[in-house]
């Protein structure tokens, strides 16, 4: 699903008449996303900024053929909104809400899996195919088409990396913000195969955080992937306080669980290069990918 996204993919915003929904629907359309409308509990026959507003996902999907949805729902309303989208046949869901309860996320994950759909989030800035489209609110200043596929738990840290890649004359082929929650949709390990199969991608940037086992799962998949594209990894949270979630619900260490030591060891053993600072990672990528730099 993710590698076939393009400027043609029809996308809706669930909750398009809200402050955030309306703003980002406009920004996504301005970037190039094929915004075909949105849903709202408020009747707005005149539409929003030229985009039609429907009373339900079913109506929106029937009228527009929407494939993707950016779910602008509050955290405790995300589960119901996703279930509505799945019932309408939506195949790709991006849920930026921060604070979705873990047991709701389990239910969402099971429903998405049963429907054969793809879920990106929650607690994430969304995804982008730079130069083509974006779903969510990755800042345009960080986006440029290029050789690096990004997967990230963190929004802001990935902005910093993306921004410096662009300034270094590099850009991104695909950018998936998997989000900072403990239980989520697409995970790091799910993305290695599609990134390796994507012809625009020449390097993979993994931006992880302490907590959970996603980096370890990714390492396991990387070990069993011969001739993978090179993986550059940055893991935040070496100095995280134990027992307390560091902003992201998933960034929680306790005992030996979720610490940076294990993640670094496993990734390194699997062949990834793990960096201690943003700048050192950018410098290595700039040197290694010199042949892919934009000129002029």
């Amino acid at each position: 699903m993710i590698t076939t996204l393009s400027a043609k993919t029809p996308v809706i915003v669930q909750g398009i008449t809200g402050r955030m929904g309306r703003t980002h629907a406009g920004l996504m359309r301005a970037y190039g996303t094929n915004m075909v409308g949105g849903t709202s509990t408020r009747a707005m026959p005149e539409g929003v900024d030229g985009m039609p507003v429907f009373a339900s996902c079913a109506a929106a999907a029937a009228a527009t053929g929407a494939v993707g949805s950016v779910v602008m729902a509050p955290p405790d309303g995300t589960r119901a909104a996703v279930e509505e989208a799945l019932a309408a046949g939506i195949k790709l869901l991006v849920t930026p809400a921060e604070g979705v309860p873990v047991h709701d996320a389990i239910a969402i994950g099971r429903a998405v899996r049963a429907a054969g759909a793809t879920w990106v989030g929650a607690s994430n800035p969304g995804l982008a195919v730079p130069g083509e489209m974006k779903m969510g609110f990755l800042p345009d200043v960080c986006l440029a088409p290029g050789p690096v596929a990004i997967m990230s738990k963190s929004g802001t840290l990935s902005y910093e990396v993306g921004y410096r890649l662009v300034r270094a004359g590099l850009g991104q082929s695909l950018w998936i913000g998997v989000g900072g929650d403990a239980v989520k949709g697409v995970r790091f390990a799910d993305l290695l195969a599609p990134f390796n199969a994507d012809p625009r991608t020449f390097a993979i940037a993994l931006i992880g955080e302490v907590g959970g086992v996603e980096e370890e799962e990714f390492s396991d998949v990387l070990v069993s992937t011969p001739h993978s594209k090179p993986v550059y990894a940055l893991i935040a949270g070496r100095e995280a306080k134990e027992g307390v979630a560091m902003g992201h619900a998933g960034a929680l260490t306790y005992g030996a669980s979720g610490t940076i030591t294990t993640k670094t060891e496993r990734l390194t053993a699997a062949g990834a290069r793990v960096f201690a600072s943003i700048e050192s990672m950018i410098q290595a990528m700039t040197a290694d990918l010199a042949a892919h730099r934009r000129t002029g």
Partner: protein
Amino acid sequence: MLLIEADGKALFRAFGIPVPEGVVATGAAPMLPGAGPWMVKAQVPVGGRGKAGGIRKCSSADAVSVALEEMLGKRLKGHTVEAVLVEKIASGKEKYLSLSVDAASYGVRVIYLAGGGVDVERAAESGGAGMVCAPDRGAIAATLSEILTKDPDRAALIVLGEKLADLLLTRELMLAEINPLFVSPTGCIAGDAKIVIDLNAIERQPELRATLEARPTIYTDAIRKLHEGFDYVELDPNGEIGLLTTGAGLSMMLIDELTARGGKPLNFLDIRTGQLRGSPKRIIHALTWMAEHPSLKVVLVNIFAGITDLAEFSVLLADALEQTPQMRAPVVARLVGRGQDVAAKTLAERQPAMLVTDDLEVSLAAVARLIGRAA
């Protein structure tokens, strides 16, 4: 987030899981439960307390008093010991039982280990142990039943496991772990309790919220988040660098990079600039908490504005600094993104002493200089 053991055990008791008789001491020696020996355990939300010196076996009341004196108020793995649990010692065969949310399968992982010991925990956490099943009571019970097929204590353990399942599902926990679980002819008793709650579900779990609110000195960070709506985590009360930052990942990375350069960050902060809504209140609160620490030498502001308008943020920052006169430390601001030029102009007028840059490396070097370290 992790609960302290005493609160985890209160949850166990409420769901019918036996725990040793005990009392929580926060000052002078309490009335001791029964006759010794007792276990004296520092109540900090971390794993590996035993190895860090936070658990002691005491056979006399005097020894308990000494242990309390030595533990209370001390730092243990980044936390101040505000409370100590004194319990009657429990015994029996040492087992391990845990139920946890399994993120990859959207289910529950059931782990039972018939051997005991502190390192069992490590074995279980390093992955793959146990079995996963659907997140419902019936599936958990069936899985336990399968794991325990040949166990001599099967009947008692299944009863206990069902209670643990009720607890995990009803309270929407991420982890409910008993290690060690003592099994003897008189029954099962939980020697320890490791409970990870989901702070995102707290609004529909009023009992858990009450548990946190009852211990403001222990769950300071979590309570602050519940009341303020953003994350401020105190890392080191003697820290030198206050962080005024947005975004969890980038803020953590900054802390790592500053520490690697010899700096001592005071706090983690994800202020969420997108939620300021034109009010300097959050910034004022964060600056106020930082200014309470005499060790503070510099404040580093780092905002990568994708959506946030820095022109607006810079006004809020200047307002907040004017309303926080007790903040005397110099401020270094790295502002990049939407509206950065207007923001730089605003701050040059209203806070002329502030170093404003759009380059993160420049700001990190300035911080290093201000705390007296080479960059």
